[in-house]
C-alpha cells in the first residue's frame, strides 16, 4: 500500500524521532517534565520577562536556540522549519516525557500564523523572530464593551492623519494587556461601510502615548483580563496587516487559531488521570474501585469523550495536511473542547469535596483548584461563545438556512 517515497519518508521520520528523543532526554531538565501547576510555571517572554527558576531558563534557551519554541515556522523567521509530520513527532515525544512548552504566547498561537499568511515581508522580518525568541509579549485587542459575540460591530476608531492612524476607543477582556509589550488590534477605519467591511487589523506598541490598561477582577479572584483604553494613539499606517478595511479576513483567520488554542487548553497542564486524583480523596472499595459509583461513572464517561476528542484533534491535523479540512472545523473543536474542560473541572471539584473549597491557604496552594475551576467557565465564552460556535457550525458546515 505504500510506495517507495512514503517508505523513505517513514524511515526519515523514524530517524528524526530517535534523534529528537535523545536530544529531549539530554536537554529537558527534570523539573520541566512536570505539568505546570501555577501561572509562575508558565514562561510568557516579553521585555519584562522573568524566569521563575533556573531550569525554566535553561529549557527555554535550549529550545529557542533550536527554533523549537515555534517548531513549524520557517527557519528564516526563527522557527525550527519542521514539516507537519516532524512537528507531530516532536509534540508526541514531548508529550511522552511530559515536557512543558518552553514558551507560551499569543504571538505564537495567534499572531504568528496570521502574520505568516497576511503579513508583508517587512512585518514578518520585524515581528516573527522576536516572537520566536520570546522578546516581545503580545496581547489581543478584539472584544469591546458593546462588541462581544457580535465582534464585527466594534467601534474603536482609527482616523487617518497623514502617514498615521490615530486610534481612540476601548477594548475589554484583553488578556494580560497589563503585561504585554505590543497589541494586535481590530479598529474601524471606515465607519460608512458595512460593519464587516470597515475594519483593519493593526499592530502597535503598548507603551505608545495614550494607551492605558486596567485589570478586571474575575470570579476566580485573578485578573487575567484587562480593560484597555486608547486615547488618540498614533500608529504608522505601515503597521496595518493585510489591506486597510479588509482586517476582518485577518481577524477570522486568527480566530480559527485562537479557537484551536482554547479547545486544546484542557490538554495542557494535565497531570494525573482524573480517576487517580479522585481515588486519593474519595477512597476505593475492596475491589479497588472508586468509592462513589456515580462519580466513577462520570469520570469514565469523561475519559471516553476525552480520548475520542484527542483522536478528533489528531484527525483534524491530518485532514488539514491532506487538504480535506473544513475551515470552520476549529469552531466545532472549540465548542466541544471547552465544554469538556468545564466538565473536567466540575469532576475535579466533586472529587475534591471539602478540600477543593479552600480559597486561601498554603495547603490548597491559595485555592488553586477552585480558582482554576472558576477560570474554566470563561472557556466557553472567550474566543467566541459555545452558542456562536454552534451557529457557525450550523451555517458554514451544515449550510442551514438563515443562520
Amino acid at each position: 500500500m505504500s510506495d517507495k517515497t512514503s517508505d523513505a519518508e517513514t524511515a526519515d521520520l523514524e530517524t528524526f524521532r530517535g534523534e529528537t528523543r535523545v536530544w529531549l532526554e539530554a536537554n529537558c531538565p527534570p523539573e520541566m517534565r512536570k505539568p505546570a501547576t501555577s501561572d509562575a510555571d508558565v514562561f510568557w517572554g516579553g521585555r519584562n520577562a522573568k524566569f521563575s527558576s533556573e531550569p525554566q531558563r535553561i529549557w527555554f534557551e535550549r529550545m529557542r536556540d533550536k527554533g523549537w519554541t515555534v517548531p513549524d515556522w520557517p527557519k528564516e523567521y526563527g522557527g525550527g522549519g519542521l514539516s507537519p509530520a516532524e512537528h507531530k513527532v516532536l509534540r508526541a515525544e514531548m508529550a511522552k516525557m511530559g515536557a512543558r512548552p518552553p514558551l507560551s504566547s499569543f504571538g505564537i498561537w495567534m499572531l504568528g500564523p496570521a502574520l505568516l499568511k497576511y503579513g508583508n515581508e517587512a512585518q514578518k522580518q520585524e515581528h516573527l523572530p522576536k516572537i520566536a525568541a520570546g522578546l516581545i509579549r503580545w496581547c489581543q485587542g478584539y472584544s469591546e464593551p458593546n462588541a462581544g459575540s457580535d465582534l464585527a460591530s466594534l467601534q474603536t476608531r482609527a482616523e487617518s492623519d497623514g502617514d498615521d492612524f490615530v486610534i481612540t476607543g476601548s477594548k475589554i477582556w484583553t488578556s494580560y494587556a497589563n503585561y504585554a509589550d505590543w497589541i494586535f488590534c481590530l479598529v474601524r477605519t471606515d465607519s460608512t461601510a458595512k460593519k464587516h467591511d470597515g475594519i483593519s487589523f493593526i499592530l502597535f506598541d503598548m507603551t505608545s502615548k495614550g494607551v492605558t490598561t486596567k485589570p478586571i477582577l474575575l470570579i476566580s479572584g485573578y485578573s487575567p483580563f484587562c480593560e484597555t483604553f486608547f486615547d488618540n494613539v498614533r500608529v504608522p499606517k505601515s503597521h496595518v496587516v493585510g489591506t486597510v478595511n479588509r482586517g476582518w479576513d485577518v481577524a477570522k483567520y486568527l480566530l480559527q487559531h485562537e479557537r484551536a488554542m482554547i479547545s486544546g487548553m484542557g490538554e495542557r497542564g494535565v497531570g494525573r488521570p482524573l480517576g487517580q486524583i479522585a481515588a486519593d480523596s474519595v477512597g476505593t472499595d475492596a475491589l479497588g474501585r472508586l468509592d462513589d459509583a456515580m462519580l466513577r461513572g462520570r469520570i469514565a464517561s469523561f475519559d471516553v469523550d476525552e480520548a475520542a476528542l484527542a483522536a478528533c484533534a489528531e484527525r483534524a491535523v491530518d485532514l488539514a495536511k491532506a487538504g480535506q479540512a473544513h475551515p470552520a472545523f476549529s469552531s466545532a473543536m472549540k465548542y466541544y473542547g471547552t465544554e469538556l474542560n468545564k466538565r473536567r473541572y466540575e469532576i475535579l471539584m466533586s472529587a475534591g469535596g471539602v478540600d477543593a473549597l479552600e480559597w486561601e491557604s498554603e495547603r490548597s496552594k491559595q485555592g488553586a483548584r477552585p480558582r482554576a475551576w472558576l477560570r474554566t467557565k470563561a472557556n466557553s465564552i472567550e474566543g467566541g461563545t459555545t452558542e456562536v460556535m454552534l451557529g457557525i457550525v450550523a451555517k458554514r458546515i451544515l449550510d442551514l438556512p438563515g443562520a
Partner: protein
Amino acid sequence: MALVLTEEQSMLRDSARGLISDKAPVSHLRSLRDSKDPTGFSKEFWHSFAEMGFAGLLVPEEFGGSGLGYVEAGVVMEEIGRTLMPSPFLATSVVAASALNRGGNAAQKSEYLPKISNGSLLATLAIDEGAKHRPLQTSLQAVRAGNGFRLSGAKALVVDGHVADLLIVAARTAGSAGEREGLTLFLVNPKAKGVAIERTIMVDAHNAARIDLANVEVNADSVLGEVDQGATLLDGVLDIGRGAVASEMVGLSEEVFNRTVEYLKSRKQFGKLIGEFQALQHRAAELYVDIEITRAAVMKALQALDTDVAKAASSVAVAKARAGTTATRAVQEGVQMHGGMGMTDQFDIGFFMKRARVCEELFGDANYHTEQLARARGY
C-alpha cells in the same frame, strides 16, 4: 498513521457505497421484512459481494481472501450502516473469519477460510447467554466425553444463527462464570444432534437466533485455539467485532443525520424553514460534532486493531462506547426533528432507530465499554 483514509481505502469505500446504495437501499431491508423472507438477506447479493472480494476481505490471500485490514472492514461496515443492509458480512466475514484466522490451526483454516472467501460458507460466533453482553459470564458447559466434548447450554443474539453453516461456540471447560480461565471456543455443526435453533425476529428486522445445545457431541479437533485458554482469543475477536459494529453505527448515524438536516432544509412551519430555528440549528450542530468525534475515535480503534489486536482494547472500548451514545442521540434527534413523519413506518428513519438499538447491545453497550475503560485505567 494519519487518521484519514488512504487513496486505496477511499476507492474501496466508493465501490462499496456504489454497490450497496444501488442494490440494497433501505427499501431492500423493508421488503425483506415485509415479505418475512426466510433467509433474511439476499443470497444473490451476497454472491456479488463475494465476487467483489468483500466476503474474504480479512482472509489472507493464501486462503483466497483479499488480505485487507480492519480499517478496510470498517469502511465496508460503515457503508452497510448507511442503508442498513442485512448482510452476513459482520458475522461471517469479520467475526468468524477473524476467529478462524487468529485461532485456527492449519487444517481448520484451510477447510473454512476459502469457503468464507468465496461466499459459500456462513459462520457466526455464539457468545451471549444472558440479557446483557458479559463474555466472562459464559456458562455453557463443555465436558470431556470420550475423544471429544459434550456441550450443553443456551446462547442468545447469535447473529445469522438460523442460516449459519458453522457455529463458533464459546463454552466453559473449567472454572466458573466470571473467570477468565476455563473458556474454550468450539466449532459446531448446526445440524449436529442436540442443536436446536430458533430464529428470533428482532426489532431491527435483521437476523439473529437463540440456540440450545443439549448434549451436543463434538470431537477434539473442533476446538478452536487452546482448551481453557480461549479468553484471550475471544477478547481479540470480540474487539474486532466491536470495531466493526462501531463503524456500522458511524455510517448509520451519519446517514440519519444527513437525512435529518435535509428535512430541516425543506420542511416549513410558521412560514419558515424549520432549519432557521436556532433551537434546532444548535442541536443539529452538536450532533454533527458528536458524529465527527466518534468517527475519529472509531478510526483510531480500527488502526489500533491493525497495529496490534492485543493492545487495542482501550481504543476499542472508547470507540464502541462513543458509537453507542452517538448513534442513540442521532436516531432520537432524527425521529424528533422529523416530527410526526418520524413516527410513521412509511418513513425510513424508524429503521435507523431500531437498528441502532440492536447495534448498541451487540458486543457490549456504551455502559459496558465505559466500565471497561474505567477498569483498564484502574479506578
